[in-house]
């Protein structure tokens, strides 16, 4: 494992730090020399117009894209590139813009899949499925059921996710991320396509996760109301460049942000 455990980092200290990261695809420069940090226990929003590089930023944190320049410091360990497995092991979990659930499995199995890193028993034990392997399955099932209770999706746990409505799919995806017991939760537009009620539910879950489990949350979101209510600090990206960084109030009044993204109320 790498660096001090998250519990060694006190609440309020920097958990993740992005320093001078640049990312290009061929000729397209998705992220240009961006630096910001995320403090443990906070809810950090990443906002900006479409194409600003927000999802790419999450992908860099996750290890899915490797930046050409810059460094990422997570839990005290600095790397120039993050590998997906390191990110997952280190306690970073993620949801996706276009729900990336395992369509062939039920909701329960999807969330159980999130427990992979915690499962120890090898192939041979699983073949026999007695004793240690079975106990491990049952123990993880307990934890997953707690998450299912938390997200209020008991009724649909055995349903194949392909059959679920969009809003519930997003909830299952959140459950799958929570099953990893992450230190840092990356949410890519968790409210996209939801009506008011669903948004309120989702907001409640995010707040609960942050309050009760102490999980640090980084979220990309377009709904300004949600951003202002939920987040502790906001970073604003535009065309791959950071144009503002501060509390929601500060950012709301920032002229650059208003010009690029928020607009003025008429």
């Amino acid at each position, binding site marked *: 494992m790498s660096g001090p455990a998250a519990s060694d980092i006190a609440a309020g200290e920097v958990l993740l730090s992005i320093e001078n990261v640049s990312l290009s*695809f061929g000729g397209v420069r998705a992220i240009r020399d961006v630096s910001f940090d995320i403090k443990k226990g906070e809810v950090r929003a990443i906002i900006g117009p479409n194409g600003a590089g927000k999802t790419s930023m999450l*992908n860099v944190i996750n290890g*899915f894209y490797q930046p050409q320049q810059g460094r990422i410091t997570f839990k005290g360990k600095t790397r120039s590139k993050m590998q997906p497995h390191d990110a997952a092991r280190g306690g970073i979990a993620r949801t*996706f*813009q*276009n729900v*990336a659930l395992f369509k062939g499995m039920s909701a329960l199995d999807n969330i159980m899949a999130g427990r992979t890193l915690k499962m120890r028993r090898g192939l041979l034990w699983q073949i026999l499925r007695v004793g240690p392997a079975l106990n491990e399955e049952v123990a993880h099932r307990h934890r997953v059921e707690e998450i299912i209770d938390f997200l209020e999706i008991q009724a649909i746990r055995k349903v194949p996710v392909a059959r679920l409505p969009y809003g519930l799919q997003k909830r299952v995806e959140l459950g799958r991320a929570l099953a990893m017991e992450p230190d840092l939760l990356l949410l890519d537009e968790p409210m996209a396509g939801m009506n008011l009620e669903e948004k309120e539910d989702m907001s409640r879950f995010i707040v609960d996760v942050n309050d009760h489990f102490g999980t640090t949350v980084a979220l990309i979101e377009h709904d300004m109301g949600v951003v202002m209510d939920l987040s502790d600090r906001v970073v604003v990206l535009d065309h791959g460049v950071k144009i503002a960084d501060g509390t929601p109030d500060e950012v709301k009044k920032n002229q650059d942000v208003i010009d690029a993204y928020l607009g003025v109320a008429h």
Partner: protein
Amino acid sequence: MVAFGQFLEIIISGLLAGVLYSLVALGFVLIFKASGVFNFAQGAMVLLAGLALVRSLDFLAAKGFPMWTAIVLGLLFAAVIMAITAWLVERFVLGPLINQDGLTLFMSTIGITFMIEGGAQFIFGSDVYPLRLFPTDAWFLFEKAFDGGILVNKLDVWGGMIAAVLVAGLAVFFQRTKTGRALRAVADDHAAAQSVGIPLNWIWFIVWLVAGLVALVAATVWGTKLGVQFSITFLALKALPVLIIGGFTSVPGAIVGGLIIGAGEKLAEAYLGPSIGGGIEYWFAYVLALLVLLVRPQGLFGERIIERI
């Protein structure tokens, strides 16, 4: 000079054999390019076209028709058969499967393969039928420079010329005609193509028809080489390495791929074969394709797939 002469002979025969592979691969490329379906039945279509052609030729010849008339009529007959097949396939198999994923469509083409193989032999017979459309003897080139000359098969040369004409024709078809453009649109995105008014069913019929005609051309050459018989269907398998190397959607790629496979096979058999035990041609093409894939997972000419989430 003998060794070099031998080498030239092997390379030339390999390249020309490769062109023949390309003829079959072209049919695959057409259908994949226009519908995203990997048509496993292409080999069976070559068989069907060949059987229709050779049986009608025999029939007409027996009735006393002069040779050239018989050939023209025979080709027309075979083309009609391929058109009927295209219509049947589109109406009863592909149409109902319009929104299914690639694997399902691929499996359905295997089902189609069985039906065509069984049906073709049931209607036209299951013997080996020799076809005599092209000269099958050989030239001996450069007899003065190389002892005995370099053996070049006339049939192979005919095959090369036909393939060249076919490729040129197909390139014009895809780039310049309205239908060709529509085919390319359909390959990119079914739903989008439909939304601009491109009739999907008609397009698929056209594609399978053209692929059927390509199969007919392939059948004329391969049928002369091997005789029209059931084992021709296995050409479909040999086309796979060709497609891997040349890319699944590239017409010139199919030619290049065929050349590489054809030459590679013959060279491997001649130079590696003796030390390992002979018969390498059986698997060399596939192993070559595998090695190419390890270096470039999308094939030599394929587009790099950039994953997005």
